[in-house]
């Protein structure tokens, strides 16, 4: 009997050995179909769900299913797995389902959210979120981030903020808004202020300003107290401060003796170091996520192109060779891509990403106005940029493959120079 079993096992092993094998790779990536059921309870719940839907839509992670195609009656269904007929949600192609009930107690709105895995008919996430009525949108952002983390194990960016420059009667002012463009708050009030950059932890911003006369210099503003202090006053002008990922130093460009170079300063003060020393203009520094390299723009070869160098200024490598005017590099948080704006043969600036390893350039925007100043979301899945495609310059988001462009701001005189802030500190 034992011998028979061994023979059978041997035969089975032989059959497996002879089994043809096919390797399949390069899967297509598709947004995850999700249904947001109309919430029950207080009418504010509907407002929260609209904010959540807009967040999901912008993220590119989810494909929102059209409520007019829902087969289930949300009014009759409950919010527990047992009370939901999942076959009706499976039938419309839903892979995930969000249900919510809202209540208003005084000035506090409370929303009870449930996230379900439709094919498995199980609950993935359940949470009660409450906030003052005025902060209703934050409830949606918080739950949205929790959903993203539940699926991707990566942080969501709905609770982050974006700084940008607003055109006003009194010049260009620095504004901080939520990641969806809502709740903009102006943090400067006069002069021309440009190129906001987030300080470590998101506690403040550095920006370039002409406020004190004598050319452009770098200032910092504390977001809590709104106090503005000089950060770099150096040479003819200083501009474009960017903080290292570890938050202990910052790079910027400064012009001395008619030569503009990239410089490095410790955040606590100390020895300032010049990183570039070419006769051309070296500007627009951007840190790699590991803090070991810096991308920058230089015209040392005759036209503005993107270069990278090690943080000590050595090992300079030119990375763009197509086009004759490439600028504004933004190194992705994942480290694999650098986004930049480049002027094409039609003399219009558009967005591109270059793979740092392969050098392959991919165009993100085309035939849609002028598109400039890309800035990555901290999870590296979305970019914000300024575009004239809808008239005046406004902020837009786009995915790194050039899809899913969405307008964020509607500034009457225009908005530009976006800088996506860090993840909120827990």
């Amino acid at each position, binding site marked *: 009997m034992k011998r028979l079993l061994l023979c059978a096992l041997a035969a089975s092993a032989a059959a497996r050995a002879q089994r043809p094998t*096919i390797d399949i790779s390069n*899967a*297509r*990536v*598709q947004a995850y179909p999700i249904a947001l059921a109309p919430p029950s309870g207080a009418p504010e719940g509907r407002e929260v769900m609209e904010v959540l839907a807009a967040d999901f839509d912008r993220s590119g992670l989810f494909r929102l299913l*059209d409520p007019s195609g829902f087969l289930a009656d949300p009014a009759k269904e409950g919010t527990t797995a047992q009370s939901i007929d999942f076959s009706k949600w499976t039938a419309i192609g839903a892979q995930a389902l969000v249900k919510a009930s809202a209540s208003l107690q005084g000035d506090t709105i409370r929303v009870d959210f449930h996230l379900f895995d439709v*094919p498995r008919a199980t609950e993935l996430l359940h949470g009660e979120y409450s906030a003052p009525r005025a902060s209703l949108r934050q409830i949606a952002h918080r739950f949205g981030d929790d959903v993203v983390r539940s699926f991707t194990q990566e942080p969501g960016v709905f609770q982050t903020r974006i700084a940008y420059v607003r055109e006003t009667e009194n010049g260009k002012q620095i504004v901080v808004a939520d990641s969806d463009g809502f709740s903009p708050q102006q943090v400067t009030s006069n002069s021309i202020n440009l190129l906001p950059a987030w300080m470590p932890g998101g506690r403040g911003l550095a920006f370039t300003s002409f406020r004190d006369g004598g050319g452009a210099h770098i200032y910092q503003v504390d977001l809590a107290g709104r106090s503005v202090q000089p950060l770099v006053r150096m040479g003819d002008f200083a501009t474009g401060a960017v903080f290292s990922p570890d938050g202990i130093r910052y790079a910027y460009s400064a012009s001395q003796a008619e030569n503009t170079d990239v410089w490095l300063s410790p955040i606590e003060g100390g020895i300032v170091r010049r990183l570039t020393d070419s006769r051309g203009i070296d500007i627009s520094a951007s840190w790699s996520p590991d803090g070991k390299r810096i991308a920058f723009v230089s015209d040392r070869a005759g036209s503005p192109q993107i270069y990278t160098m090690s943080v000590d200024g050595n090992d300079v490598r030119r990375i763009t060779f197509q086009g004759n005017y490439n600028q504004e590099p933004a190194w992705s948080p994942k480290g694999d891509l650098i986004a930049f704006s480049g002027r094409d043969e039609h003399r219009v600036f558009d967005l591109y990403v270059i793979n740092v390893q392969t050098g392959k350039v991919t*165009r993100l925007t085309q035939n849609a106005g002028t598109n400039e100043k890309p800035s990555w979301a901290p999870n590296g899945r979305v970019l914000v940029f300024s575009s004239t495609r809808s008239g005046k310059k406004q902020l837009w988001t786009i995915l790194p493959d050039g899809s899913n462009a969405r307008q964020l701001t509607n500034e009457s005189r225009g908005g530009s120079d976006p800088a996506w802030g860090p993840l909120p500190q827990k």
Partner: protein
Amino acid sequence: MTDGTQTVHRSLLGGDPRIGALGPGLTLAIALHLAVVAAAFFLPRLFDRPQPLRKPVIAHLVALGKPRDPRLLPRKESAAPAAAAPASVPEKAGAPSKTSAPTRQLTRQELMDRALAGAARRTRDEKPDPERAGEETGSAQGTAASAEEGEKYFGAVEDAIHANYVVPSVISERERMYLSATVVIYIARDGAIVKHVMTRPSGNSFIDQALVLALQRTHLPPPPPELAKLVREGVEINFKP
């Protein structure tokens, strides 16, 4: 001569003053011309036949132009038509989708392969040359002819499954880059996947679910007779990122 008789010279071309300045010859010439014009006008109508239909020739002029200068920044590739969103189109629960592989323009190489495959099919009906095709008791590694068929068939299997190999964007990029899984599929004579067994799951339920969905949506061509037994006993599919 001057007998008082008045001599009147009449030319053939001249007209009788009583009937006007035109002579009969000119009148005749005009009449003949009128007749010719009238004939040209009326005769086609007498033999009124429908004019042959002339379809307009619509030509799309395609300028191939010069290849793009590699020193220029790249252009975006033309956007593919957006896939229809199945949001409001209920599907039959549990039933495998009838979605087939997206049609695309065949390349010259693929057309050549198809022609060769057709020729191979035609010659298959011929009595096989035992020396070429081998005997039933021959090598388990197969023969040259069956290897060619196998290569083509397994290529078709790969294409059909790959067309449905879609992973959700909510999977983290790290997992998408490194996770892999193995599934054994059992193929019937009509090409149906009668069973699949996940012999090595990826460890991520979203990916495993996507693989199962891909197999449920896949419709394979019937295997060639010489491969029917082999594929019925299982084909191992290694899904890689």
